[in-house]
């Protein structure tokens, strides 16, 4: 459905006031929510129904005023100062956190002065109740002249009322015409400026023109000649922008402070007392960082140790399914396709759902509580030494789940160099897609022993790989810092929101959504690749497959092999001569110094679609290559994998470590490259990223293999 002709409802408000929560309730969509200023960095569109009218709902990034200081916020100024913008709203729902209403009136009165139809939604009324804060909606309604609805995004309360109020405003009822009674009265000088800009941009609203006078250089809808005309006007009247902003802000406060005082009872300070107590510990000079690393350790520990039973269960299920298919379907090509291609490919990957669910559960809990901005505060100083910003830590932590949203989260970093470096190094942080590869291969690199009786050696290796990713990210950040030059100033300046009880429903929904995305997206890719692979591995060019078969039988007779061994030999000779074998062999010379054979070569090629495909690919190749009736798990298949010529095991410690290192560093994710291209607006940076990560991967694997073998 095209939503371009529908009326537009904009959700606007300060960061972290609950816009996305309300968006989700109105549209039924699942926009990301979290207790951190700047969770939403791009506008997001959905549809809702008001009475019988469908309307387009836009969730905007949060901003404190119409004087934005970062890129995500400047989206707003481009839309709201341009009535011909395709997202310019027909009606605004101004969301305000009722527990700190006063400062949020600034943006509200600015929007009202733009003469937009507004409904004020007082959110977080459940918190107000808990803290005995009382407010008088009627009073606000009278003083502001706009409809006011108290809602709770957490309890999903009063949304019918909100919709009704919005619908009325949309129909032109209750619309406060602000043109003659603006909250901010422009100074004489500002009036002159506004009048002249009015004629340049064809505006009738003085306040809009004043905003344009402030931001014209960032406004995309103005052409070059308009910008230079406005520049002339601003210079002619000798307009001091900061002075103007101070005067406007103070004038507005003078107007609305009495209104808020009369309508809300409770000081802002008291509301933070709980947060202050917690912060005495969590941001403590010494205890703070210790707690942070303790938490991170806990996350990794949980990923590894909580997941073993559910993983065994899933593995068993897929093995049973494969056996069932093989024993109940005729021995035909499609049975092989299903059992060897699809089922084993899928099973090899879906087994990692428990680990991915745990990772997302813990990271979204940290976000919901409000801990992320504390980490930003504590590590800003260290991050700067690496050319990063405190905010980079949010990208780096969420990069542990997936690099795609992490790269988008960098929009809150206003300094281009710091943002670019964060984007470049975030994919080095081990994401959830690497978990399958790590878990599978660690078993070959490290024995399952307990060090000192209680530390699981494999878990330690797992953590070591994550650590390696982090070190790799920080070191490359330093190198980028030395290479890239910028004159731009860098800022920290971040709000530390009050701690909140996590919304468990939100957290669980996030986990479910991520797991579903993993199943469907990864599942789709794996399905397609499994089928292609199955084909490539089962058929070969010309008569080669037949010849390989005959040669294998001859060889088997010469060696006096039994029936099973003969079958295996035939299968492996055949796959070697298949199309897949052909591709793998083509890159074998390049990867041989790393200890990889052509089977691994195939898996590396397919991994460029997405890393988790590695496991599925291995499963498919080895299922086809062994003609046993019993479906065994992929782990067992790899254990048995031997080089048919020499009879040596393929997965030695050296090969496994080398392969692990390759997956730690290599850029094998098309989605990440695509999002980096989008965020940096050029192919230059994803290309550089691909090659520098590739070089790191190749060199570290080479060194490791040569040392270990």
């Amino acid at each position, binding site marked *: 459905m095209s939503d371009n002709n529908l009326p537009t409802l904009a959700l606007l408000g300060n960061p972290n006031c609950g816009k996305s929560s309300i968006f989700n309730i109105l549209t039924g969509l699942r926009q990301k929510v979290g207790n951190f200023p700047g969770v939403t960095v791009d506008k997001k569109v959905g549809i809702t129904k008001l009475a019988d009218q469908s309307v387009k709902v836009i969730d905007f990034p949060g901003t404190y005023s119409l004087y934005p200081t970062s890129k995500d916020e400047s989206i707003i100024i481009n839309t709201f100062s341009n009535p011909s913008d395709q997202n310019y709203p027909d009606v605004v729902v101004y969301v305000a956190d009722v527990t700190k209403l006063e400062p949020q009136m600034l943006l509200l009165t600015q929007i009202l002065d733009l003469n937009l139809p507004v409904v004020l939604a007082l959110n977080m009324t459940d918190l107000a109740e808990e803290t005995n804060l009382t407010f008088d909606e009627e009073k606000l309604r009278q003083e502001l002249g706009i409809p006011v609805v108290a809602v709770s995004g957490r309890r999903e309360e009063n949304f019918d009322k909100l919709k009704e109020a919005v619908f009325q405003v949309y129909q032109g009822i209750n619309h406060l015409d602000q043109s003659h009674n603006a909250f901010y009265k422009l100074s004489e000088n500002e009036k002159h400026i506004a009048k002249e800009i009015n004629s340049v941009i064809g505006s009738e609203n003085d306040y809009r023109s004043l905003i344009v006078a402030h931001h014209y250089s960032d406004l995309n809808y103005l052409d070059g000649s308009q910008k230079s005309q406005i520049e002339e006007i601003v210079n002619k009247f000798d307009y001091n922008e*900061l002075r103007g902003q101070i005067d406007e802000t103070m004038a507005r406060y003078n107007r609305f402070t009495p209104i808020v005082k009369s309508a809300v009872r409770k000081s802002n300070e008291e509301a*933070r007392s709980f947060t202050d107590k917690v912060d005495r510990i969590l941001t403590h000079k010494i205890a703070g960082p210790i707690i942070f690393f303790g938490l991170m350790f806990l996350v990794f520990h949980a990923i590894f140790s909580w997941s073993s039973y559910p993983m065994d269960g899933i593995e068993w299920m897929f093995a049973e399914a494969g056996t069932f298919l093989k024993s109940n379907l005729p021995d035909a090509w499609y049975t092989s396709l299903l059992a060897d291609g699809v089922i084993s490919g899928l099973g090899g990957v879906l087994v990692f759902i428990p680990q991915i669910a745990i990772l997302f559960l813990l990271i979204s809990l940290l976000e919901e509580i409000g801990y992320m901005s504390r980490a930003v505060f504590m590590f800003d100083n260290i991050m700067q030494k690496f050319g990063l910003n405190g905010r980079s830590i949010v990208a780096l932590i969420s990069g542990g789940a997936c690099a795609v949203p992490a790269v988008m989260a960098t929009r809150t970093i206003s300094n281009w160099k710091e943002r670019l470096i964060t984007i470049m190094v975030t994919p080095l942080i081990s994401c959830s897609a690497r978990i399958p590869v790590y878990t599978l291969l660690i078993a070959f690199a490290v024995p399952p022993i307990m060090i000192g009786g209680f530390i699981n050696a494999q878990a330690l290796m797992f953590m070591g790989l994550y650590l390696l990713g982090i070190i790799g990210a920080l070191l490359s950040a330093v190198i980028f810092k030395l290479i890239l030059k910028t004159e731009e100033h860098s800022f*920290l300046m*971040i709000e530390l929101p009050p701690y909140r009880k996590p919304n468990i429903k939100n957290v669980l929904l996030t986990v479910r959504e991520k797991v579903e995305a993993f199943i469907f997206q990864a599942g789709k890719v794996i399905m397609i690749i499994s089928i292609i692979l199955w084909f490539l591995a089962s058929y070969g060019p010309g008569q080669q497959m037949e010849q390989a078969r005959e040669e294998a039988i001859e060889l088997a007779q010469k060696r006096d092999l039994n029936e099973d061994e003969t079958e295996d030999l035939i299968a492996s000779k055949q796959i070697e001569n298949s199309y897949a074998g052909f591709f793998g062999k083509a890159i074998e010379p390049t990867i041989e110094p790393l200890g990889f054979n052509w089977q691994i070569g195939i898996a590396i090629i397919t991994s460029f679609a997405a890393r988790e495909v590695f496991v599925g690919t291995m499963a498919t190749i080895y299922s086809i290559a062994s003609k046993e009736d019993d479906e065994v798990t992929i782990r067992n298949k790899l254990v048995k994998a031997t080089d048919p010529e020499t009879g040596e095991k393929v997965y030695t410690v050296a090969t496994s470590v080398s392969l692990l290192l390759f997956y730690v560093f290599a850029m094998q994710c098309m989605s990440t490259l695509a999002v980096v291209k989008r965020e940096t607006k050029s192919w230059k940076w994803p290309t550089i990223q691909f090659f520098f990560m590739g070089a790191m991967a190749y060199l570290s694997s080479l060194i490791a293999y040569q040392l270990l073998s």
Partner: protein
Amino acid sequence: MATLASLKEKRSARILSFQDDRIASKLLSMGILPGSMIQVVRKLPGRGAIYLKANGYGIALRNHEAASVLLEEQS
């Protein structure tokens, strides 16, 4: 001249003026104006970031950012 960077932990003072436009703009947006009270909640060692409270907001500023905020002399 007293700046916010020189204010001790747990102490409060009144803002006199701003010297950096970007910092000023952001603080103004949060309703933190000349004349507002501002409190230092925590200072990290090694000229690290400073955790401040004003107008009901918790805010983190870098040391040099805080140095651009001038304070009224305490009486």
